[in-house]
């Protein structure tokens, strides 16, 4: 499977009369966006705004972040099984509006939605302080069920990202990269001397605001399976979750999965990257046993020498992480796990809910309990009234001048567990 990613660099977003892309600027007609979002009967109002890097803007509570992309020269589309026909994606050509993102916000559905600050201390911890963001603050009708609320706002973001992506059809890319994975046996024959590596991606599937969708299927209902890495780049996996803001994978993270990209960088020289095994993180023990058995079985079946395992979320999924690690190591396959830590605000507490001596190679995204101080911003897109209630907040955490003291946990992507950031933690 071969995919050409064609980056069109977006350096600014502005409102305009016509939605179009000109000279690296994305112009957005508010009416276009509004009518698209308002198609959903559950949504009664959408406020559309733009947040650029360096601006004194805070977006909260954030639900998802999506990168606008579009498939060209293909009868398949982004987010198959959700807003495009359910066809296998990952081949052909895809335009990427690099430097832009759609951010969904609005009244809170659960406790686990987060903050994006475009400048200041908080901006250091979220990758989305560096993207030009089109922000949709969606308000649903009162009395809406939490499940419908989540779904409506999720689809609004996806639809708008798709609409914007389509504006790039016909444009010449600024840079092009090609990613290719051969069918397994051919791939192994091509690089017989290189160690074979697969990527085991754990998908959050604990329930409302803790869901992920694979080709439109709720990941709770999958058994582990195999994907070509390029499928991820075309929206095969979509976030429906808001597990603590810091360590959930937004849809943007799935589209730009850095484990996949970094494995491709060493593919053919230091390793032979054979594919992606996806698995879930269900709450029932039987599901945990079944899924971890299957990831180990699939890793063995692929005949790999090593795997990278990435987690999503924390606490309960720590058990899935350790089960995956243990069972794959027991097959004689080397593992490295990527996780994050909850070591208490002082960093003195035991950071994981489960552990095993076989997990001897760990990469950490940092201690999510560490406190950060966020100065007031000139403008808030969304609502500040939940800032003491979202995960990572606490009663009385907003000072009189508006300064917020909060755990890193509340910042979108801060301790990401696919290793998106440079943040880590060490012993002192």
């Amino acid at each position, binding site marked *: 499977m071969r995919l050409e990613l064609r980056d069109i660099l977006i350096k600014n977003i502005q409102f305009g009369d016509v939605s179009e892309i000109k000279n690296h600027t994305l112009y957005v007609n508010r009416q276009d966006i509004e009518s698209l979002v308002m198609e959903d009967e559950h949504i009664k109002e959408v406020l559309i705004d733009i947040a650029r890097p360096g601006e004194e803007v805070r977006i909260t509570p954030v639900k998802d972040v999506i990168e606008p992309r579009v498939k060209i020269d293909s009868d398949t589309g982004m987010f198959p099984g959700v807003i495009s026909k359910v066809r296998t994606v990952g081949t052909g050509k895809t335009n990427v509006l690099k430097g832009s993102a759609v951010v969904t916000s609005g009244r809170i559905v659960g406790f686990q939605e987060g903050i994006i600050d475009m400048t200041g201390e908080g901006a250091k911890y979220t990758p989305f302080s560096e993207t030009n963001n089109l922000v949709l603050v969606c308000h649903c009708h009162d009395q809406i069920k939490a499940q419908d609320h989540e779904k409506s706002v999720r689809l609004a973001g996806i639809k708008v990202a798709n609409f914007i992506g389509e504006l790039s059809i016909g444009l010449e890319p600024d840079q092009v990269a090609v990613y290719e994975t051969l069918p397994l046996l051919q791939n192994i024959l091509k690089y017989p001397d290189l160690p074979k590596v697969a990527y085991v991606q754990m998908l959050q599937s604990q329930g409302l605001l803790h869901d992920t969708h694979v080709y439109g299927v709720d990941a709770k209902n999958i058994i582990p399976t195999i994907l070509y890495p390029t499928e991820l780049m075309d929206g095969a996996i979509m976030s429906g979750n808001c597990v603590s803001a810091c360590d959930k994978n937004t849809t943007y993270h799935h589209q730009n999965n850095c484990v996949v990209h970094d494995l491709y960088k060493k593919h053919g020289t230091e390793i032979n990257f054979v594919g992606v095994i996806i698995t879930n993180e269900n709450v029932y023990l039987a599901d945990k046993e079944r899924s971890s058995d299957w990831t180990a079985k699939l890793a063995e079946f692929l005949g790999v020498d090593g795997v990278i395992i990435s987690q999503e979320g924390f606490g309960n999924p720590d058990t899935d992480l350790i089960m995956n690690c243990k069972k794959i190591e027991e097959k004689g396959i080397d593992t490295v796990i990527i996780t994050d830590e909850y070591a208490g605000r002082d960093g003195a507490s035991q950071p994981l809910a489960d552990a095993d*001596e076989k997990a001897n190679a760990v*990469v950490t995204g940092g201690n999510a309990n*560490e406190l950060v101080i966020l100065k007031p911003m000139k403008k808030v897109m969304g609502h500040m009234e939940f800032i003491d209630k979202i995960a990572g907040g606490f009663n009385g955490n907003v000072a009189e001048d508006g300064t917020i003291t909060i755990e890193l946990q509340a910042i979108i992507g801060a301790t990401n567990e696919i*290793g998106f950031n*440079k943040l*880590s933690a060490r*012993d002192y």
Partner: protein
Amino acid sequence: MAKFKVVHYINQFYAGIGGEEKADHMPEAIKGAVGPGLAFQAAFGEQAEIVATIVCGDSFYNENMEKARETILGMVKQCSPDLFVAGPAFNAGRYGVACGDIASSVQNSLGVKALSGMYLENPGVDLYKKSIYLIETKNSAVDMRNAIKKMVSLGLKLLKSEEILTPQEEGYLKRGFRKNYFADKRGSHRAIDMLIQKMKKDPFTTEFAMPTFDRVNPNPAIKDMSQTKIAIVTSGGIVPKGNPDHIESSSASKYGKYDISKFRDLTDQDHETAHGGYDPTFANLDSDRVIPVDVLRDMEKEGRIGELFNFFYATTGNGTSVANAKAFAAEIAKDLISNDVQAVILTST
């Protein structure tokens, strides 16, 4: 600039008073630097002055800890120093415990910055590494010069309130704190590099060494439940509606104790969950799903259990540190025992 004032603590041996036969030497304050203190003074140079040396026998300190501590704290207070240095104790066990205990007491009670130095296997290390900086030394006084150099360097940083770097950079023993920092490469890159090293059987360094878990063995089963007083303790976040104690949705810093004596059944009118780590819909509709008050009331009526304790205890397990959870549990257990509760149903989510 005036020189910083330093008080140095050593044992009877390093003070030249004697060996084991003098280990019961009572605390004594001597003006200026003594024994290894002379080398410390040379290393501090013009920046700091050892104004007094306190000498105490190792046996005396360890066998009369409270008295020794109190006496020495009084002596240190009189000097009002800016820094307190103890040892280094190398691998001398009783000396290490004395150094750690007095240095951490000086820091905690007098607010004076303190440090010591010892060998990794000294029993003082595990007791005091979290409270004070301990420079890592070799296991004998052969390492004195090197130890003093590092202790003085760290001491001066403490005096000037400069940033204390990593254990490797400063030479102190790991204190058991996890602290964030920005690495050179992103996590996925670091993970792949680590995997390549691991597959090649090359040495690699994990970013987090797996802890040893303390597992708790359950007590033997209760034979006669009909005579047993049962309480409910939950990490599922069930609270009276409105969450009166503001228990956090994640990383709880507290737990609540709530009266259920008037309740036969919990409903969405009176209870809800504060927990932010799971779908709260069903717990909010009927909190009995997390803490089964309705069923326990039935069983109470039917005589299958003795009684349900009038209070339940709740916190949110979501992201709550083990240290906090342990502290809550210790308090709750005490309260349960003083209320003659014989069994507890622990529910999690």
